[in-house]
């Protein structure tokens, strides 16, 4: 497989200008404007440097500008490879130990930045921030929207799947990256909203000022109202080998394959069965990367069942009640070992399985990025929070919450007189709903005419199928958003395939007995590689949960290209009863695992603080000696003192205390301080110019 994704079943591949750059003295090719990380990955470079403490290889981990693990030296200066755009002729080097400060002694004339006032400052241009900005824009309110990335949309731009939620409120049925475009287009219509991209908010200060770095310039903003819509960060997990290269957050992986269009691996394994993990597996397959399996510690996946079923149908095994034991390899992941868990969360002896993979995706949940919210509140600022920064949920919920918060801010400014409808709050709650119980749903009895079969057995907030049916023949059973879809009594299906093409879960098939009452045609949705389902080719058809129903030749492949781009509609002919159970097409063979003998899983060597390379064992020793203050733990071990500012290790520190049987009420949390990311002294001094760049 080439290291660049040159074609994709869903995403279009933009044309880019090729440029040359140097990497440790070697000349390489990359694309202008892509991140240094993408350019290096495209050239097969995964090791970006070695850690000063233990010489361990360093490279991409969060791909989100947060963790600082991907530091490289570009034109003499240490920068994050995941945030720095490639330029022609750039000289890039690995960071070996401490970087040297360039001996650039040219005098500078400082231009300190004045404090600028705005009515509303929104930090984060993801689904929540954008939606709020649109409402404020409609009301003509002076708003500044800042985001650290080079485009609007936040994590929406990584989402190649169609969205759940409601059609009327959150573009359900549209693919995430397209929703980002739609919101950005809408926002562009409102001149009262100014957008600063490539702008990282770095601190909320006691004087009610938010500090932000725009390019290399420092900006001080004093907003009347502040909205923190900074989304979430990924939780990390402590296990041996957890900092090997090739262990990524699932979000980092999505960034690499779907935004940067590079293929960081050939075979991944996924830890965590929430929606993020399930979707990451799906994104891997779409990017032409094998997914060897997924482990989930709970008895069932936490994400939407339709997402899990979609993966299973494509041939990705899901191991519930399993845990990751270790990632194995010298510098880079070469294999991963998992094991079964008993009811007491202990590893079942002899249940170890090892898979040869080069990448392990961690998707064990998200944590709210709400430090600025808490700090602003403590400083007495008028601050709001929305989206994942408030409560982890789906992007659909974040969009709606953003919109409602936009109105609340307008109201607090006296710029919106009406009451905010009560129904909105209810709607917001519904959109935030966790997946409900799973129902048993027998196959339809009738064997005549044409009708959709719903492989949708779990209540989730989603209604596109009902919205697109031209005959209004589909309705939700019970709640109009949460209920399961069904055919209206006496409703007429015309076989238009809209519901099959729109369903975000790929959980609707269409069975057509009209031409052949014994061997009906079945139409199945498919979003991976077209050549696997070419007419005449034999495909393995599965039921809802991935059990094989036999191999069948493909009769026809169509698509409703204009309305529902990206979803192929694959027709096969099958026996009548099987046809009603058919739900998907298998893509890959089940991965074989070798089973090693019993191993001991003592993660004392697992790294907790990645920045300072502090192990669980080191920290545990202090906890056992009675340390209960994380600030003292930091003073003693440097855990949390690194570049990321404890963003990654803090949840793990709490976990460690819990595992040691410490009453968490006795534990004192780390004190949060600015800065959010590292910023050159020269930026604060205004050494690189004035305000003319905005």
């Amino acid at each position, binding site marked *: 497989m080439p290291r660049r994704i040159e074609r994709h079943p869903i995403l279009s591949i933009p044309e880019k200008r090729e440029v040359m750059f140097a990497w440790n003295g070697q000349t390489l090719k990359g694309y202008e404007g892509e991140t240094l990380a993408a350019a290096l990955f495209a050239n097969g470079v995964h090791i970006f440097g070695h850690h*000063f403490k233990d010489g361990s290889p360093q490279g991409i981990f969060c791909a989100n500008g947060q963790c600082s693990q991907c530091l490289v030296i570009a034109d*003499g*200066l*240490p920068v994050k490879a995941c945030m720095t755009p490639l330029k022609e002729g750039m000289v890039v080097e690995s960071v070996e*130990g*401490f*970087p*040297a*400060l*360039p*001996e*650039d*002694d*040219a*005098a*500078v004339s*400082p231009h*300190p*930045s004045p*404090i600028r006032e705005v009515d509303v400052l929104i930090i984060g241009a993801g689904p929540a921030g954008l939606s709020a900005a649109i409402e404020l824009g409609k009301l003509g309110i002076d708003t500044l929207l800042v985001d650290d990335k080079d485009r609007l949309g936040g994590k929406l731009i990584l989402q190649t799947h169609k969205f759940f939620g409601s059609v009327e409120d959150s573009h359900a049925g549209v693919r995430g990256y397209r929703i980002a475009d739609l919101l950005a287009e809408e926002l562009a219509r409102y001149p009262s909203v100014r957008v600063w991209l490539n702008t990282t908010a770095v*601190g909320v*200060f*006691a*004087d009610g*000022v938010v*500090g932000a770095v725009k390019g290399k310039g*420092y900006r*001080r903003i004093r907003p009347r109202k502040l909205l923190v819509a900074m989304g979430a960060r990924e939780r990390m997990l402590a296990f041996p080998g957890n900092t090997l290269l090739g262990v990524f957050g699932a979000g980092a992986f999505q960034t690499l394959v779907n935004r940067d269009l590079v293929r960081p691996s050939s075979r991944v394994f996924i830890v965590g069965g929430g929606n993020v993990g399930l979707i990451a597996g799906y994104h891997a397959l779409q990017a032409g990367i094998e997914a060897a399996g997924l482990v989930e510690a709970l008895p069932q996946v936490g994400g939407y069942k339709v997402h899990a079923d979609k993966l299973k149908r494509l041939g990705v095994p899901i191991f519930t009640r399993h845990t990751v034991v270790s990632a194995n390899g010298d510098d880079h992941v070469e294999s991963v070992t998992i094991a079964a868990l008993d009811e007491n969360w202990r590893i079942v002896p002899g249940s170890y399985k090892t898979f040869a993979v080069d990448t392990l995706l961690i998707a064990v949940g998200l944590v709210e990025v709400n430090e600025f919210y808490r*700090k602003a509140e*403590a*400083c007495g600022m008028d601050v709001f929070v929305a989206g994942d920064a408030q409560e982890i949920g789906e992007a659909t919920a974040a969009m709606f919450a953003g919109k409602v918060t936009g109105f609340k801010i307008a109201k607090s400014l006296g710029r919106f007189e009406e009451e905010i409808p009560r129904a909105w709050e209810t709607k917001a709650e519904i959109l935030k709903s966790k997946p409900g119980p799973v129902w048993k749903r027998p196959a339809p009895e009738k064997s005549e005419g044409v009708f959709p079969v719903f492989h949708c057995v779990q209540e989730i907030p989603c209604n596109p199928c009902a919205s697109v049916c031209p005959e209004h023949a589909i309705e939700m059973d019970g709640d109009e958003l949460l209920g399961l879809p069904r055919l209206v009594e006496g409703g007429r299906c015309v076989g238009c395939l809209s519901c099959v093409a729109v369903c975000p879960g790929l959980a609707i098939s269409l069975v057509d007995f009209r031409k052949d009452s014994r061997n009906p045609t079945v139409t199945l949705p498919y979003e991976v590689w077209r050549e696997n389902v070419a007419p005449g080719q034999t495909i393995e058809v599965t039921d809802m949960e991935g059990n094989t129903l036999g191999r069948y030749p493909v009769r026809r492949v169509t698509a409703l290209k204009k309305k529902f781009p990206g979803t192929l509609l694959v027709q096969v002919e099958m026996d009548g009863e099987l046809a009603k159970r058919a739900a998907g097409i298998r893509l890959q063979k089940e991965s074989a695992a070798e089973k090693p003998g019993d191993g001991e899983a003592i993660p004392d060597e697992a790294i907790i603080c990645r920045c300072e390379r502090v192990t669980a064992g080191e920290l545990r020793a202090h906890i056992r000696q009675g*340390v*209960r*203050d994380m*600030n*003292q733990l*930091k*003073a*003693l071990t440097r855990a949390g003192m690194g*570049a990321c*500012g404890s963003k990654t290790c803090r949840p793990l520190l709490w976990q460690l205390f819990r595992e040691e049987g410490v009453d968490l009420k006795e534990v*004192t949390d780390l004190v949060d*301080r*600015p*800065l959010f990311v*590292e*910023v*050159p*002294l*020269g*930026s*604060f*001094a*205004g*050494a690189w110019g004035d305000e003319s760049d905005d």
Partner: protein
Amino acid sequence: MTETYDAIVVGAGSVGVPTAMALAAQGVRTLVIDRHVSPGQGENKHALGGTRATHSVPGKILVCLRSLEIFSTWEETYGDPIDWVKGGYLFPAYGAEEEKVLKEILPVQRQSGLNIDYISPEEVQEILPGIRAEGLRGGSYSPDDGNASPLLAINAFYRRAVAEGAVFHFGERVTAILTRDDRVEGVATERGKYHAPVVIDTAGPFSPSLCANLGEELPILPELHEAGITEPVRPFFKCLVVDLRSGPGSKNDYFCQNNRGQVIFSLAPDPPEIGLNKRSTSSFLPLVSARMVDMMPRLKNLRVRRTWRGIYPVSPDGAPIVGWDQKVEGLLHATAMCGQGFMLGPGMGELLSRMVTGKTTERDAVILKEFSPRRRFESHEALK
């Protein structure tokens, strides 16, 4: 049941912890009480870690010379790393006034045993590569000063104090100093009472409220100072630099590269800000950065990692307040370290232990006269 000790130290900070260590080493049964949950969580952790004997008055010089001996030999004596760097202190001079001040105090400094010299601009540039040469008139340099990690040092002192038998109560607030007939009896906390004939006030900015309506009035104000630390880079200078030039909004700034390659910096705001709000302000970084890159342009590319704000408990003349209370017998003040608690602490701890055990020396008398709570607070420390 009331616990009884020989001495109770209020505050487990830069002075309290080394004091407990020194007392316990003398066999004094010592209790330390602090409202924070672990050692050094008040102002100690806000310190840069600069440790100098370079002061303009003999008392401070003498205490800090002893501190330096303790810092510089700690690791080889006890094995705990405290990140000690013997890099000296450098006070570059760009103006005639600064040059004059620095040269004037040399005799006093040398008389007190300090190893210090006024060096040429070329020598300054050798010690601090990248310093702006234009207008540089040399500077004073004291090679035996250095810096250490306050975080590691206080934990090392704490472990040592515990090993010597000192008892620590954390997360407990002293609500009153107990007296009878103008004699100390102990302290009361929200959890109970503790008895001891000696109570040592090492509460820094909280000394005035601790001793309110009790002993002598303590003229201490909480002055807010901000500081920051950068990413680590390959070591390129070893000294702690004090830039004495006053500028708009600031009186001076100071920075060093610590043992971990990180540059740690602070600034004295002008006018000083009095208060207890320890949240960072947006004005500090632009102010201190402009000063630092002006004197050392190459610092512009160095990335700031974190900033914080802490309190200097200051006396009117910039010297500590140390001595037995004249109104309440058994109450010993060791406070108002004026932002120098970390460097004074180890030497001060030993001095206090000699006071408690009645073993003070002639040298101690010189120091105690200078730090007396009853002095007139009129003089002015040139290197405050």
